């Protein structure tokens, strides 16, 4: 009988390979559950979960909420835009007020790096990091690697390239940790201004030529250009970015092999990826969304299992 080696999901960095494998196995079962006529199990009916989103999110929030509801947990939602945070309340006060309502687990997205870890040290609840600034987004990496495993049978030994705005991407960092843990080979590709210094210290390579990167890979994970996090110009124009780092059908047809195309969403169509690629047979973007619910159910279930009933 197995369980996760961690009490909170703060980042992939804290996980072991066995943890990821346990999450995948559990997610396989939940994937079967969410394809039933009645897509719900009663496991977590005595658990209450708060989804705290201090930063905008559509799919992650919906995906978590659906995963929690499919497990029969009680769910409360909170967005920073309509809360007392605007009135100057601190993070710990906000969360402790919510926990006073007997909440067992907190799913939090926050613009500051380390917010989830900070919270885990100061409050009595299981914490799931749903994205902390430009640091980590563990459940995205779990669903991405789960989708690769589903499509290609295994992640081990596969060549995966992460393309685009690596500098501002929490998805990239979590993916790199997860892919390395599972024994994949990883490259990042993008304009030098959007590739962090010293990223090779994570045991990965940098490739500045998109065509070479695509030729090398089995899987291309294309990141969104995060205009909202760019305080200065990182490249001369969107048009130039698209010409050098936009993935289009012409590039893919030149490869002479099938590669898997992924994108964590939301897509800037015509910027980092063209519509014909996003909607093609190469793309597993919508599978990623479906797998997002199954893998998040697995994470929530496995963490809830550790909460002993009094």
């Amino acid at each position: 009988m197995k369980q996760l080696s961690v009490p909170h999901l703060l980042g992939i960095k804290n996980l072991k390979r066995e943890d990821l494998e346990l999450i995948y196995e559990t997610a396989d079962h939940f994937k079967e559950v969410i394809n039933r006529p009645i897509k719900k199990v009663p496991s977590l009916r005595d658990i209450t979960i708060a989804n705290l989103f201090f930063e905008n999110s559509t799919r992650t929030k919906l995906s978590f909420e659906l995963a929690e509801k499919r497990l029969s947990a009680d769910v409360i939602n909170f967005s920073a835009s309509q809360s007392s945070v605007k009135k100057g309340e601190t993070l710990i006060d906000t969360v402790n007020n919510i926990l006073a309502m007997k909440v067992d687990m907190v799913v939090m997205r926050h613009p500051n790096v380390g917010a989830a870890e900070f919270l885990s040290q100061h409050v009595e609840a299981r914490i799931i990091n749903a994205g902390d600034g430009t640091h980590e987004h563990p459940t995205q990496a779990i669903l991405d690697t789960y989708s690769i495993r589903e499509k290609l049978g295994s992640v081990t030994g596969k060549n995966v390239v992460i393309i685009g705005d690596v500098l501002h991407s929490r998805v990239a960092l979590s993916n790199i940790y997860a892919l390395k843990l599972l024994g994949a080979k990883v490259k990042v590709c993008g304009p030098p201004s959007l590739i962090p210094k010293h990223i090779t210290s994570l045991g990965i390579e940098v490739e500045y030529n998109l065509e070479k990167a695509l030729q090398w890979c089995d899987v291309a994970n294309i990141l969104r250009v995060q205009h909202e996090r760019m305080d200065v110009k990182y490249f001369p124009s969107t048009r130039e970015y698209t010409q050098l780092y936009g993935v289009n059908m012409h590039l893919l047809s030149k490869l002479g092999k099938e590669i898997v195309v992924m994108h964590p969403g939301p897509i800037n169509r015509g910027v980092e990826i063209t519509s014909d690629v996003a909607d093609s047979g190469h793309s597993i973007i919508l599978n990623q969304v479906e797998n997002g619910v199954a893998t998040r159910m697995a994470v929530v279930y496995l963490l809830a299992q550790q909460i002993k009933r009094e």
Partner: protein
Amino acid sequence: MSTKVLLDSKEIDIILHRLSCQLVENHGDFSDTVLIGIQPRGIAVLKRLQTILTTEKGITNLATGQLDITFYRDDFRRRDEPLQANTTSIDFILENKRVVLIDDVLFTGRSIRAALTAIESYGRPSDIELLVLIDRRFSRNLPIQPTYLGKQVDAVNNEKVLVKWHEDKSKNAIHLIQKNN
């Protein structure tokens, strides 16, 4: 720990054939009936009944499935050991079907309670029956009784009934194990 053989391979074989006959008697050609084995230990019983029904009783198109009840159990977060799920494979809708749940040992009845809840996720069956190889009577926590029964056993709480299946049919046996603690 002492072990006693409750049923040997020959007795198990006779019981499986009797249960198959009873199923045929009640379900005819099985056109509206599905046999669902409860994971993990009900599957072995299901497989053996399936073999007898298809090879000896001439039943064609027998619909079978495997049901895992982990997510429906009532002892989630109450056990020291975490629960691990098994595969569920039911490739059909159970709406208006006659369902026969199959397990090896009926003890407290809580697994069957969970299975009854789980089965609802696949539609509303017209009826549900229960087939077990061993019924440990006097140990029930819930008002659940089998429809088809292999053998009734009186076992006290520190005893365990263990069904052992082998590739070689002649080595099948059901043991009563006395725990020392």
